[in-house]
């Protein structure tokens, strides 16, 4: 069998970005949540906010550290595996990536140190400011990396000279047509992801009954937050979809599983897209509904996959199903939030065991939806790295052999399969110890050990 460096490079990119994106998906929301908790504590001086902030900071430190080390891998991928893309597009995308570094990463990294280690060393207001700046850093990071991605999806503001892309209008490049929608939809998705984790941990804490005040507060904060953000996210998703229809019609046709375009197109609910037969097998579809929600008119015109040459179509099966998984999860989330609000209104939230148990399981929903959504937009962009302009096949480094990339991919797989299970189990362990544990091991709490790190170092010690 011939090893294909392009295919393996794509697998490698999917592997490293797929794991990496889970971390910002969590830390972006968590940073804002911690900043909120720190602010609430500064205003109210209620210990419950401090306990929660210290509790989540311990989880944040781990997830953020994992985000940093897996994130450093990412920009190097452009060079190691996609050097022709880097040469061709470097003049346009490099400042966006560099701005992510100088605006976001330094802010996050420096003030995270102060946030984690500086509570006793800096005044409380400065400590709160550090929390805010870390949160701002995570948002700035999302801004620039999504600006880069959006330009690759909907390129504008450039000119082509000798097959390379040069900037003409920086405002257009940064705020490319899909950027506002992608940014809003992604940030909102990350917030929802974090809130579902907080909901799960709150439910667990309430059920266990060890830190009831902290548990109840987590549940309520998460639920009210989600009551706003889940519906908002669905609206933003719809707007993002309409934007895709306007700017990436081939991707939208793959998402919809729509082969024959025209007026009054149906909505495919479920089926199996057959890329060679150019039709969906065993399909359930509703006539005219596709046009209705895509064009907001009964007979609106939508392009189908057959309007594009076969070599310009994305792998339809993957995009079709990843999109449906994302939407399905969104609806499930809506049902969870509605149920929770009803229970809250009836004052039964903290006693309804089945719902709390369910909340624990739905803690992972956001991550699944993020992966599904990211797959939809990235696989949907194929076969292009720069949509409609530069093919993925023309982007890969010419010097790489299939064996080279196979070796590096195997190493990435091995390392990630060590660090992610350890990281997740370590975070679960912190959750099991619960928010109350912060009182005994925090340098701020009453019972201050002589050397907390030493005491904590022994598994049978303070743990």
């Amino acid at each position: 069998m011939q090893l294909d460096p392009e295919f393996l490079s794509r697998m490698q990119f999917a592997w490293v970005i797929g794991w990496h994106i889970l971390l910002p998906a969590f830390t972006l929301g968590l940073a804002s949540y911690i900043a909120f908790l720190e602010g609430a504590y500064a205003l109210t001086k209620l210990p419950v906010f401090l306990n929660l902030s210290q509790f989540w900071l311990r989880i944040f430190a781990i997830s953020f550290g994992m985000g940093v080390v897996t994130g450093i891998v990412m920009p190097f991928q452009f060079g190691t595996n996609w050097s022709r893309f880097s040469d061709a597009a470097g003049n346009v995308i490099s400042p966006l990536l560099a701005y992510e570094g100088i605006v976001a990463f330094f802010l996050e990294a420096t003030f995270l140190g102060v946030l984690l280690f500086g509570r006793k060393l800096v005044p409380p207001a400065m400590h709160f400011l550090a929390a805010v700046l870390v949160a701002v850093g995570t948002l700035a990071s999302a801004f620039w990396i999504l600006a880069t991605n959006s330009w690759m999806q909907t390129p504008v503001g450039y000119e082509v000279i000798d097959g390379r892309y040069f900037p003409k209008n920086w405002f257009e490049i940064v705020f490319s047509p899909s950027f506002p929608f992608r940014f809003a939809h992604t940030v909102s998705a990350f917030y929802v992801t974090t809130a579902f984790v907080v909901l799960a941990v709150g439910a667990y804490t309430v059920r266990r009954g060890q830190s009831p005040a902290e548990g109840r507060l987590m549940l309520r904060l998460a639920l009210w937050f989600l009551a706003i953000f889940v519906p908002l996210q669905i609206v933003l998703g719809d707007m993002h979809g309409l934007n895709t229809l306007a700017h990436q019609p081939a991707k939208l046709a793959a998402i919809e599983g729509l082969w024959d375009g025209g007026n009054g197109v149906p909505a495919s609910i479920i089926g199996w897209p057959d890329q060679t037969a150019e039709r969906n097998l065993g399909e359930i579809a509703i006539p005219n509904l596709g046009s209705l929600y895509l064009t907001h008119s009964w007979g609106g015109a939508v392009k189908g996959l057959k309007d594009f040459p076969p070599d310009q179509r994305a792998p339809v099966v993957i995009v079709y199903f990843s999109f449906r998984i994302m939407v399905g999860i969104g609806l499930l989330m809506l049902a969870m939030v509605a149920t929770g609000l009803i229970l809250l209104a009836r004052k039964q939230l903290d006693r309804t065991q089945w719902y709390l148990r369910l909340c624990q399981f739905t803690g992972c929903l956001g991550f699944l939806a993020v992966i599904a959504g990211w797959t939809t937009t990235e696989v949907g962009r194929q076969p292009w790295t720069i949509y409609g302009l530069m093919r993925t096949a023309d982007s890969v480094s010419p010097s790489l052999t299939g064996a080279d990339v196979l070796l590096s991919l195997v190493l990435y797989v091995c390392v990630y399969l060590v660090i992610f299970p350890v990281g997740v189990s370590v975070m679960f362990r912190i959750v099991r110890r619960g928010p109350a544990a912060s009182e005994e091991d925090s340098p701020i709490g009453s019972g201050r050990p002589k050397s907390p790190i030493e005491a904590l170092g022994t598994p049978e010690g303070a743990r």
Partner: protein
Amino acid sequence: MQPLDLVPIWTTILALGVFFYVALDGFDLGVGMLYNFAPDRSARDLVMNSIAPIWDGNETWLILGSMGLLAAFPVAFAIIIPAVYFPVLLMLLALIFRGLSFEFRYRDAEHRTFWDHGFAAGSALAAFAQGVVLGAFIQGFAVQGRQFVGGSFDCFTPFSVFTGVALMFGYALLGAGWLVIKTEGALQDWARALGRRCLIGTVLGIGIVSLWTPYVDAHIAARWFSWPDIMYLSPVPLITAVLIWYAWQSLNDRSEYGPFFAALGLFVMSYIGIAISLWPMIVPGHFTIREAAASPSTQAFLLIGTLFLLPVILVYTAWSYWVFRGKVRADIGYH
């Protein structure tokens, strides 16, 4: 109107960025390498705490360096990075292990020994891989047009493996200097003793690489040994010799800051030596900085923000070092 030539500015910024990375992550990678030699666990805790609040910021310069290279000299990025495919891979995987050890050795205490070794070995491997990149860069790459066309293992040569080992000693020397600043008593004596060995290794490394370099590249030999260049270049080895003498003295007397800054001085001199040898090439033998430069618009767009943000970054980085100044304490953790 002739647009302002930004290439010298970007060359300076990139050179400074790479140097900041080498100096800052250099000392904390060095601390990581020395970590497992610490006498006991409480000493190891202190050693790790001496860099725990700052390593993340230090490593951020690596991203700035790589993205700065892509932004200022895109074609150089597109040639050099695939040419050092495996050293970069090793460096990234090593940095993953090392970075996570900070948290995991506390949290995953059953496997503390594994993470302790991961921290030390990860630091060592990352330093070695960066040294291989440096050696490969000095040697040059097989280029056709605007792409690297050699093999992915071409970068591993006796010369580049040697520069890898030499850089490990250099980083360890910086790390020992940092530990002299941050510790006291017996632990500081330990750091000084290790520092002396690292200095011997570093001096041998600088010496042998300096003798070897003109043999791997005839252009460099011509530049070094032709008149009058040899006269202009002579201060470099002379200052280096003075710094070596001062590093040895300060490791042996009671100087707290001497060893670190002497080591830093040795890095500055080595860096200048390499820059003199390769100037004005950014891809040795193929692209000068001017030929590889990004479009003026790209340079200008990024420069606007950089000129504003870089000083801000330096100020708050300096502030965070100031917050964590003084001898390292065992109880700054949040765990």
